[in-house]
């Protein structure tokens, strides 16, 4: 039996489908969080390579019971339609700012810091960098964690008298709820003493709220193409023989 033209592809065993919305949200695997946030970031205008970094950051946080997906949604909503020129970090001695006094994107900043690896690492207890203003700064932690791993030293993010540490084995500790609630901060990044061991990678799924899910899905949908008759014609068939 030859299939009708309105639905040419028999099935797709590799895709991640849209998560079902329960009354108030859904439990998502890390894989689902990473893929959804990657697509949403791309939909919001990030390059594919940066969008991969956004997906990485969201899943890293979710694995530690921090709402990375919500932070990604806040960030891409905040930066939607802003050009790379505006959010592009400018690196000078001991300091990173955005151009023309704009706010730094934590994904762009984190990526730049990771790309430069341990070139930034100064002497212990000395300020490594002053950064800011940076929006949704909790998104910076996954990148600081990767740098910590690279240089085998713990790193602290300090702002307004508060601190969060990340360690070389993926640990994170400190005033995370405060950091999560900050929409924008000026901060210092330091090489600090080791954080207390924290339970990293223990979580197997993370609950994402309906608002966050629908928001991310809305951006992710921007990466898709409406079907055309051309793409459907002769692409496949359904047979129930």
């Amino acid at each position, binding site marked *: 039996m030859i*299939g009708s033209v309105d*639905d*040419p*592809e*028999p*099935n*797709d*065993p*590799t*895709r*991640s*489908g*849209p*998560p*079902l919305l*329960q009354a108030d949200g*859904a*439990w*998502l*695997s*890390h*894989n*689902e969080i990473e893929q959804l946030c990657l697509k949403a970031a791309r939909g919001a205008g*990030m*390059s*594919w*390579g*940066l969008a*991969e*970094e956004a997906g990485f950051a969201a899943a890293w946080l979710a694995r530690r019971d921090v709402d990375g997906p919500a932070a990604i949604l806040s960030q891409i909503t905040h930066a939607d339609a802003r050009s*790379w020129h505006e959010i*592009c*970090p400018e*690196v000078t001695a001991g300091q990173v700012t955005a151009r023309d006094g704009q706010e730094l994107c934590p994904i*762009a900043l984190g990526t*730049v810091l*990771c*790309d*430069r*690896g341990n*070139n930034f690492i100064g002497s212990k207890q000395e300020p490594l960098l002053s950064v800011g203003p940076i929006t949704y700064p909790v998104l910076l932690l996954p990148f600081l964690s*990767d740098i910590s791993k*690279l240089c085998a030293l713990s790193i602290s993010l300090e702002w307004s008298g508060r601190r969060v540490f990340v360690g070389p084995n993926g640990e994170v500790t400190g005033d995370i709820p405060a950091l999560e609630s900050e929409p924008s901060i000026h901060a210092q990044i330091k090489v600090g003493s080791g954080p207390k061991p924290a339970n990293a990678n223990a979580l*197997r*799924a993370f609950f994402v709220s309906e608002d966050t899910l629908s928001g991310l899905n809305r951006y992710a949908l921007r*990466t*898709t*193409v*409406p*079907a*055309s008759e*051309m*793409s459907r014609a*002769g*692409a*496949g*068939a359904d*047979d*129930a*023989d």
Partner: protein
Amino acid sequence: MDCASLNPFPKAAAFRRPPAEVMRLARMGCAHPSRLSFLRTLLRRMMDQGWEFDRPVWDVDDAGVGRAVYRAIGPDRIYSLVAFAHDLPDEMRSDRVIATAWDATFAMFDGEPSDVDLDRLQANVPLQEAGRISQKELSLSRANRSVRLFEHVVDRLATGDQPNIDDVAAVGYLMRTTAVYGSGKFGAADLATVMDRPELNVPFQVEMLSVWLTRQFTVDIVEHLARVRGGARAARIDPAIRKSLGVGNSTGLGMAPFLVRHPILLNNWMMAREEALARVRAQPEAASNAVCEFRAALSDARENAQKWSSTHPIQVTKLDALRSDLDNISGYSAHWPTSVTDHPWDALWRWGEAHLSLEGQEALLALMLEPHGHLVDGLAECMVADERASFRLDGSMTVDALRQRLEQSYDWALTIDFDLPDNAARFWYVSEEKLEPRIGFRFEEDGADLEQPLCIARLAKDLHSALQEWSKEAPVASFLLAHPEHRFMVRRVQATERHPYAEVRDNLIAADMLPIDLMRCKLAFFGASRFDPRSDKWVRISLFQDLPYPSDLSPEAWA
């Protein structure tokens, strides 16, 4: 895992085929299943370790509706396939993603499900994509009956007869899976969280186990329905017919991008297979029992090639070539090896390269691995990939070093002229209506501005051009600060530096590109047989055909 450090045959490196030969679409589109295929590795492990299988729950009514549990009991852990059997009206039966009901639905449970678990799964698994499973589950799948064969088999068995063997051969399965969702899909556990288990540290083991237990279900449900209909008269299915039945699978375009999206995984699969071939070729002699086993495998392959049918013109041509090639191998190997043949397996391989089509050469590869389990089976452990480990790129690399790397590993891409319409005719995208990968015609359809980054050759060439504008000594970090659009490709170039088989060395947006070539390669690694393209974008295959059932390994549980 680093395969090189485990290599008991360092001399094999000299016999390894280069990526420029192996990683071409035309050759990948001729790949054959081998003893390194994932379903073969699964069966080997379960047999070697003495796994046991049973069916503690069979709660299926006379209409064929209900639930069942199949257990795979290993030395350390138990996995349970939870099956839901449905009574599906014919008009609702569809293999497509938009289908909302199936003849049977399944979830692989990590451990032994309680009644509460079963009730939870019953409320979700039959809905498939519209339901949610939990971290206690490892996969979600469904299957539909073969309308041609299923009813025929039930009818015949009900009257105490056996099905017509020509009808059985023409279809080859009672049911076909239409999707098997693994790692982390729809709320299931991420593969990364269970990869420390040896039995899951080979790609797609959960999915293969799910399909294998599903194969048992397909036989159990036809025999159940035959008993309902025929009572005492009903027959069990003949063991030889039963063995010839696999599980069908229809696979669409969505599978094609997988190998491109997972370059390190692709490298590890290819590298393991190529290392296996090289180890066999490097043997200075051919043991007589290995030669016997090779001839037996060749005989099976010739029989399989006779049973393998397709109506797709491309596959028809390939099958003709394969049958002729297998005849030629048989003719040549009748007088091989002679007493003076040095490195006889290598001699056989070189003869094959000179005399066989690509189909025949790749079939010969699988045949040559068959008698050499002791040399090659350990390579299955090298086929997983920790993609996260190579995610972070090295920004301190100089622009010049990156350019040189591109010119070495992507030389095949840099010579393509993308200004020629035929070289940029297609584009990969994700469809809004079904959120699945598709391929379109760039100059005739809208949407190319939303192209997916699967056009690796062109991305490599664009990166190469952009690098020309930069100082040789500049760090890549500075380049990427100015050019975030090249980040994806820079990461890829760096990540694949130690992975020579990571890239498909063909233009994936060329007018004449065939997505089914990518699918054939991936499905051969699964262990799929009887590859039957239904268009250039979707295929039918069979899994586990001619291999044992769980009830063959634990007959007492099905007595």
